[in-house]
């Protein structure tokens, strides 16, 4: 019975090895991969990953090789070799293997603790501080400033300056969410009534995708965000623009749009600074046209998708908190024109 087994077992082992090799080679995902680090924190974690990966491959190959060879070589004998000498040799081999395991694990523990220290937030310092609040199913982003009027509130897109440590204060408005930008850092949870602090840093300009990583209800799948790392002067310019109140309507259509916004249900949930709209249920729309996506990274900020979102958001992101809005075509076009002007 054992004859056909051997080659097949070897094929299985080979397959696993090939798969392991693929994993190591194909580790070049997009802009949201833990294997594609873009900041010092994710870089340190990446190094730890490769250390653990290498050790694991070695251990796995050794164990499977011993197992298969052990099973294979026993075919030559007629009986189990259980005399005292053989048992003693086995005991010695097992003891050595256990000792090696213990030493290896200790080494990994040290590596893990050192990495953990390196990536933990520094105790103090003058950092750009951003407060991020999780909502079902979007991210509220608030740039802190000692001067209240200088604070900036936006949603789902977080601009940061490159080469600087940025401190994030994470909390939640409703259920537990988790903030995760694999290219920059590991995840941290957003827990109601708790404030968790973490720091991130991007070394070079770029856009990094992140996504909620703790199951938070029906639209957990569509709760993405973007970190947009820009050179410091560019970031400063962006921040200055965000601090301004919204632009005033430039033409009649936009003015009509603003009127629609303020008289329909929009105003019940959203804020547009510089207008009477000041509710905090949904995302702040003061500079919504400066963002690239809507609905937490679900659809692009473009005329058609915005129209669909405003009128029937439930077909885009079923279960989200935005109601369906009954607007006449004229009202809708005016509203879109107004929203698109909010750079």
């Amino acid at each position: 019975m054992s004859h056909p087994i051997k080659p097949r077992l070897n094929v299985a082992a080979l397959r696993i090895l090939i798969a392991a090799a693929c994993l190591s080679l194909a580790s070049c995902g997009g802009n949201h991969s833990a294997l594609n680090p873009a900041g010092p924190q994710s870089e340190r974690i990446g190094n730890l990953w490769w250390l653990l990966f290498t050790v694991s491959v070695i251990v796995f190959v050794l164990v499977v090789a011993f197992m298969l060879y052990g099973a294979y070589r026993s075919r030559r004998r007629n009986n189990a070799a259980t005399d005292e000498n053989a048992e003693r040799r086995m005991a010695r081999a097992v003891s050595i293997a256990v000792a090696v395991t213990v030493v290896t694990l200790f080494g990994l523990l040290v590596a893990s603790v050192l990495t953990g220290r390196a990536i933990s937030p520094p105790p103090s310092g003058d950092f750009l501080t951003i407060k991020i609040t999780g909502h079902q199913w979007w991210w509220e982003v608030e740039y802190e400033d000692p001067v209240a009027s200088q604070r900036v509130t936006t949603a789902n897109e977080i601009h940061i300056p490159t080469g600087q440590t940025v401190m994030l204060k994470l909390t939640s408005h409703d259920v537990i969410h988790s903030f995760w930008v694999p290219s920059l850092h590991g995840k941290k949870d957003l827990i109601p009534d708790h404030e968790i602090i973490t720091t991130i840093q991007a070394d070079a300009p770029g856009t990094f995708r992140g996504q909620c990583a703790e199951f938070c209800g029906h639209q957990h799948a569509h709760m993405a965000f973007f970190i947009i790392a820009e050179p410091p002067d560019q970031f400063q310019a962006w921040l200055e623009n965000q601090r301004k109140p919204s632009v005033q309507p430039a033409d009649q259509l936009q003015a009509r749009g603003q009127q629609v916004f303020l008289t329909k249900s929009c105003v019940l949930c959203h804020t547009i600074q510089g207008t009477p709209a000041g509710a905090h249920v949904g995302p702040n729309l003061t500079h919504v046209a400066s963002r690239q996506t809507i609905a937490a990274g679900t659809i692009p900020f473009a005329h058609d998708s915005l129209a669909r979102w405003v009128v029937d958001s439930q077909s885009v992101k079923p279960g989200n908190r935005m109601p369906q809005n009954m607007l006449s075509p004229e009202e809708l076009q005016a509203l879109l024109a107004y929203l698109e002007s909010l750079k």
Partner: protein
Amino acid sequence: MNVESATVTTDDVRAREERERAILERTWASPPGLWGWLTTTNHKSIARRYIITAFIFFLLGGIEAAVIRLQLSRPENRILGPDLYDQFFSMHGTTMMFLFAVPIMEALGLYFVPLMIGTRNVALPRLNAFGYYVYLIGGVMIYVAFILNIGVDTGWFSYVPLSGPQYSPGKRVDFWAQMITFTEIAAIVGGIEIIVTAFKQRVPGMSLNRIPIYVWAMIITSFMVLFAMPAVMLSSSMLATDRLISTHFFNPAEGGDPMLWQHLFWFFGHPEVYIIFIPATGLVSTMLPSFTRRPTFGYLALVLSLVATGFIGFGLWVHHMFATDVPQLGQSFFTAASMMIAIPSGIQIFCWLASLWSGKVRFATPMLFILGFIALFVLGGLTGVMLAAVPLDLQVHDTFFVVAHFHYVLIGGAVFPLFGAFYYWFPKWTGRMLSERVGKWNFWLLFIGFNLTFFPMHQLGLQGMPRRVYTYQEGTGWANLNALASIGAVIIATSVVIFIANVLWSCRNGLAAGNNPWESDTLEWDTQSPPPPYNFVFPPTVNSRTPMWTRTADTPVVTGLRSECREVLLTNPLDAEPDRRYEMPGPSIWPLMLALGVGVTFIVVIFTPWGIPIGGTLCAIALIGWFWSGNRPEPNLPGQTREPLEDEL
């Protein structure tokens, strides 16, 4: 006193055996018909129902998994909406953890522990029946809810506040919370059964250092059950009261804390993994001798490893919570503990390799599953070490990497040994062998399908795919690996269908097995296949760890137990010296009645607090009935007393 040498002539022995057998058949038979079916307290009947029920839940959980893979096979799939998908993945996790994995492990223990230690029934047989019925009611209840579109949709660990009254209105989570309590009552009952049976009913000679490793594994598992399950029953009950009568254990607005739920849940949830895994390692250690033709290498090391795992398993629950605000020092402690648990697991693996290395390996189907188990479990263990490292865990926690990891540990580490054990013990259950040829197809398809499905998930997680998403967007780059995983799922399903076909076919047409088809070393192979209700005519005594291999014609057997009533021999816990004879209770309807009373209580309170007085009354009636029957005078068959038996010794 109850042990004698079988040195009389074989004819005498045989004649006496037949006489005894006839009496035992009468004594231990269940009443005929449906009544007998409902009242039986035979551990094999109960365990067999347990195994079949758990396997049906395994199939249901598997169907849910298949639907999940169908939904995720391509980006922006709309076969399921988020509402239905959330119910499917929550039911999948809930089913596999609460209704399949733990129950089937305990069920195997309830079937085989008494046989392996040479006794006639589990201790407390009516409690055993009660445990099964409670489990059945809990499982059926949550599936009825699921069919009625009130299936749980908050995941198998249902974090608050999402599962709290504010964010999960309706009855979905209530059914789930009550189901937890049901199944954990059953689990605790099973644990108590196994501990008492294993410590008090071993045959003479089976001192602590001769207990089969599988029985050791079940003892340690049972102790873990006793300490872990109350934590989750407490938390599920607190959740139920938060939802039903507005307590605020987990409500931050009223001074509660959602982190309390996570600590309580994972204080159960992590040991839970070992509650599933330790019996599986016990299965491997106990099957290996038959397929390496030597006693398992390193008995003491294996047993101590299991004990160590049992202890350390309670010290690493926080590694599920590294992304919360656990302080640095605390993180390091739990990292160290999580890595430390790799040591006992490593010892076990090295001991098994040593058995292979020095044994004469026979590549039967159970052995293939053991080899597959070792490879997959090592891989799952290694990713486990990765997850123990906090910085790396922060990256891959709650992603498909973790999904891959725990399926390697739970399917590779527990389901593979289970399939091996099915092939190994099927002849004992039915008297017929499963087809070896089909078994090899079963193994290879499962092995290949499993790796196709779950290996790519490691990479999906590293590439940023969170778990529990009902779909993913086009540009994420996750489509190909997801499609591959879904193809793998089809192969797994094929393999399971082949297994079922093999079972159905072999039940009728399998080769006759005989008492000990694998030439195994443990006592369950000493009796007929399938075993009679009383297990052994004369329970054998043992003088080594491999009793079936070292017995001789004059190895003593146990006599002197009364055959006309359900009597078992109690021995002392350490050396298994005969202690006293004990009469087991017979069939009773009250375990079922009490389970129904408990069921009414838990289900009605979901809708009205009146459930407590109503259900409490029903339970009180059932309990009165239960203990009343215990005071009936002992059945004394005419013409037979205990004296002659004593004289015989």
